[in-house]
């Protein structure tokens, strides 16, 4: 309990009031033991104050709750890589959309302009030609739209 080998005996004597001459002599010269002896009876009484009115939780329920907490933690750990892949795929898809739009931006702008009523009339009169898109563009558009839809669907399912 302490560096002084007699401290347990001193505490015991202080608590029980059973002092021997040698212990009294020791306490007079050992500051640690004197301090311990001074408070030992009080600490003993304080420790013995009855707490038994207080009902402790059932160990079985603690065990079950601990297991549940562990399962939740394990599930969180297991889903971490999936979440990371999901975030990466969002970024990749967003990047692909941005690249596609930038690649065909001028053609897209022309196509949007061609939807204006004035242009519709002009093109009907044969004065202007409509913007044209390559088959590759349409193919990429379809692929990207499909991937985006799948990702969105997967996210909704995962949330549920």
């Amino acid at each position, binding site marked *: 309990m302490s*560096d002084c080998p007699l401290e347990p005996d001193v505490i015991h004597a202080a608590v029980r009031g059973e002092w021997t001459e040698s212990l009294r002599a020791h306490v007079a010269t050992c500051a640690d033991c004197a301090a311990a002896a*001074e408070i030992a009876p009080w*600490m003993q009484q304080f420790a013995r104050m009855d707490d038994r009115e*207080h009902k402790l939780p059932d160990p079985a329920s603690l*065990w079950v709750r601990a*297991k549940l907490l562990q399962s939740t933690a394990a599930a969180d750990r297991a889903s971490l890589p999936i979440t990371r892949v999901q975030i990466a795929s969002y970024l990749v898809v967003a990047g692909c959309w941005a690249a596609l739009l930038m690649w065909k931006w001028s053609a897209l702008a022309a196509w949007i302009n061609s939807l204006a009523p004035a242009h519709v009339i002009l093109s009907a009169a044969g004065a202007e030609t409509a913007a044209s898109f390559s088959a590759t563009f349409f193919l990429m558009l379809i692929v990207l739209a499909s991937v985006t839809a799948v990702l969105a669907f997967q996210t909704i399912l995962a949330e549920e």
Partner: protein
Amino acid sequence: MSASALTLEAPFAALGATTFRRMPKRPMDEAKFEAFYRKTAGRIWSYIYRMTGDAATADDLMQKTFFRFLRSNPAIADDDHLRHYVFKTATNLVFDHFRETKRARERVVEPLRMSDLGADRGELRHDMMRVFAELKPQERALLWLAHVEGSSHDEIAEAIGVKAKSVRVMLFRARKRLGDLLTRRGLAPEGTR
């Protein structure tokens, strides 16, 4: 309910190889936990309650202590070492609690309602709790572990996170402080020497 095992990694390395003997990994099953809990929970609750002075907080922190204990998958065979580990965990949680709630309230004890107890017992407990609450949390932990749990200086050092060499001086000061408080309030036991 089946006595299945909890099998996460044990953080016992932090406790020091000299203090805690490592045993082959053997997950604790429900029956062993229950036996250990029944032996230890009351003492842990009393310790936390004396430290915080609040029964509800003691309930909460005691449960957290055992959750942490189970999460650590205790692979130490000796019950004494397990008990010291639980006390260390409880001490950390109590200190964290004081840090989180940061206060002035650190020293204010909320004793049990008098209606819960017999009037005399309630008053006596109230007085004792008040005296103990005037000590710093670390002093309370030192005194409780040394005097009630009979922990060695090494064990106390592990529990409160200080060097073993410092414990002797800290314990001496805590004892003197409590002695002074008791003397000032006229509660010092007579005839101890």
